[in-house]
């Protein structure tokens, strides 16, 4: 178990190192370079050279990468955003908790809804309920978050006035949580898409478990059908869901970006879209980096939980 954990953590660190490298390389290919972006198109070549020397842009590239890593790890310095006039770290540390609230709740909601749905489909397999749910999951699967979010806003916020339309940009996490009505639509939007895939997976995972030998054994020894379903099949079917959860995290984070943009939710995704409009590369690369680190950490957590839940994994390899 310890060996597995260590191996897994080392893997995660290596991945993050190379993501840093990719992000650094991307920051180098900005057309015109940072000097042009900051000083404007009228800057003289001398000024630009001065800016480059001052910021260490004339150093050899590996030296720059080393400096970049040093700044990042020692000072958590992600660079400076000239369009927001703030450090990127400050911007992100303000937005990240709000995104975590959105992603966290919606993931829990998705699990709470999709697991029973999957079970229901297995219990009533090839009955109308099963077909309807399968059809719905197909539609929600194809429905982009921005469309679902827009439709929800149109009906529940604009027509029915049940929920507010958007968010105040200055809201803190406390504000958002103290009036959770605004959270309902974004959470539902983000969760619906996850539910569509999770419930399908849950259904097939349960179906698969029902064909196993231990189910036949359980039935043969006279266990009640309920017990067979909920104890024998469900416990084994739940384990793959953990893996799926780990694998889905990058996708949920991508979904959060769209959802936040639709609802003007003041999180990392909204910041990213805004930065994209302003061509604010430092912010863009900063949010990408943080989103990736969060993703890798989330996958790591899911894998560790998986290893805890399933002893077979611990002893493999």
């Amino acid at each position: 178990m310890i060996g597995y954990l260590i191996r897994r953590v080392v893997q995660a660190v290596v991945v993050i190192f190379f993501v840093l490298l990719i992000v650094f390389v991307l920051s180098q290919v900005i057309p015109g370079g940072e000097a042009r972006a900051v000083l404007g198109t009228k800057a003289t070549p001398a000024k630009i050279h001065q800016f480059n020397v001052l910021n260490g842009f004339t150093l050899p590239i590996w030296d720059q990468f080393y400096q970049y890593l040093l700044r990042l790890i020692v000072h958590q310095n992600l660079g400076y955003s000239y369009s927001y006039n703030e450090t990127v770290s400050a911007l992100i540390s303000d937005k990240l908790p709000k995104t975590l609230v959105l992603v966290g709740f919606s993931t829990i909601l998705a699990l709470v809804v999709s697991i029973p749905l999957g079970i229901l489909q297995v219990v009533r397999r090839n009955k109308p309920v099963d077909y309807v749910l399968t059809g719905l999951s197909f539609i929600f699967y194809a429905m982009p978050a921005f469309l679902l979010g827009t439709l929800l806003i149109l009906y529940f916020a604009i027509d029915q006035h049940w929920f507010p339309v958007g968010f105040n940009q200055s809201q803190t996490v406390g504000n958002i949580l103290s009036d959770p009505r605004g959270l309902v639509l974004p959470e539902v939007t983000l969760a619906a898409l996850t539910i569509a895939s999770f419930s399908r997976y849950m259904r097939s995972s349960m179906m698969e478990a029902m064909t196993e030998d231990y189910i036949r054994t359980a039935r043969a020894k006279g266990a009640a059908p309920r017990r067979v379903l909920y104890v024998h099949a469900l416990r084994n079917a739940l384990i793959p869901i953990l893996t799926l959860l780990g694998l889905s995290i990058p996708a949920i984070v991508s979904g959060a970006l769209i959802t936040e943009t639709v609802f003007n939710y003041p999180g990392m995704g909204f910041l990213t879209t805004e930065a994209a409009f302003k061509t604010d590369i430092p912010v863009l690369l900063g949010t990408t980096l943080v989103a990736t680190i969060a993703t890798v950490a989330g996958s790591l957590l899911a894998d560790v939980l998986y290893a805890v839940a399933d002893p077979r994994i611990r002893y493999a390899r």
Partner: protein
Amino acid sequence: MPGDTLMPEGHERHDGGSFPLSAAAAAEDAMPGVAIPVTEQGPGTAGPEGGDVATSGGALRQITRVFIENKLAVIGLAVIGFMVLFCFVGPLLYHSNQVNAQAALQSSNQNSVCPPCAPGNGHPLGTDPSGFDLLGRLMFGGKNSLIVGFVAAAAATLFGVVYGAVSGFVGGWVDALMMRFIDILLSIPQLFLLIVLAVIFHPSLHILIIVIAVVAWLVPGRLIRGETLTLRVREYVQAVRVMGGSRTRIVFRHIIPNTVGTIVVNATFQVADAILLLAALGFLGLGLPAPQTDWGAMLSNGVEYATGGYWWLIYPAGFCIVIVVVAFNFVGDALRDSLEVRLQQR
């Protein structure tokens, strides 16, 4: 990292990088633990030379038969066919100005205080905020959505297949290195990477296709690598080796043709994914530059007018995205099923 050492066999196919946008992921998940079936190509599908897939009438006919028996697949295919006709042939029959914004604005301003004008008055679906006829705009934008969908999916599949086959065939540390590279890229949330690339390389139609292909090739790469691992130890591959066939020949003439089932199924889902990715970029305002558009960008335009009851700015574009993506998913699922059924019958 996603899908690394922990995955049981079937899970390797799951794409961790793109859930809401990836139709492939759920469809693959629908069959967990099913050992990748399409590796077992019948002897008719791929002879020793492997390349003569199309000539093996029996297998192909059987696949077609199972496919046609699947009603959803036929509906999906019909929807795709209709949409292709609508977007590519439609503009020839239904003329509308989609390029000159000023002319569009003037012509729609003549009689009332719009745009966006309500349906009617020579505009069956009304006009958009710039005065462009919306029905024509659906065709015009849909053409871009479909072109990007097909070409980006083809490019991503092509590159992924070659990458995966080479990685799996060469094996050893090269394989490990090539796969870790995929893991690293997959750990970056797809949309973030897409946005960064779209901002750095200002998008035109061609660049968008490349950018979308760059984030989409990872899944087929990993899939085909998995298949190659099982194929490289087959007797016919060994035989070619013994006969002195070069490695290039083995990969391109024997291994890749035998993964064609997986490739086709995955490519179908890739088209749906690419359309969704373009729509997402368009929605965020990072897609094609005006006056070009796509369904996602049209939807985003409509959202700004959401409070005014301009339903025709939202529903038609949204409807087009959803039915096309559902249609591709139906076809992909049916293709996979029909390939599986054929194998079960053998």
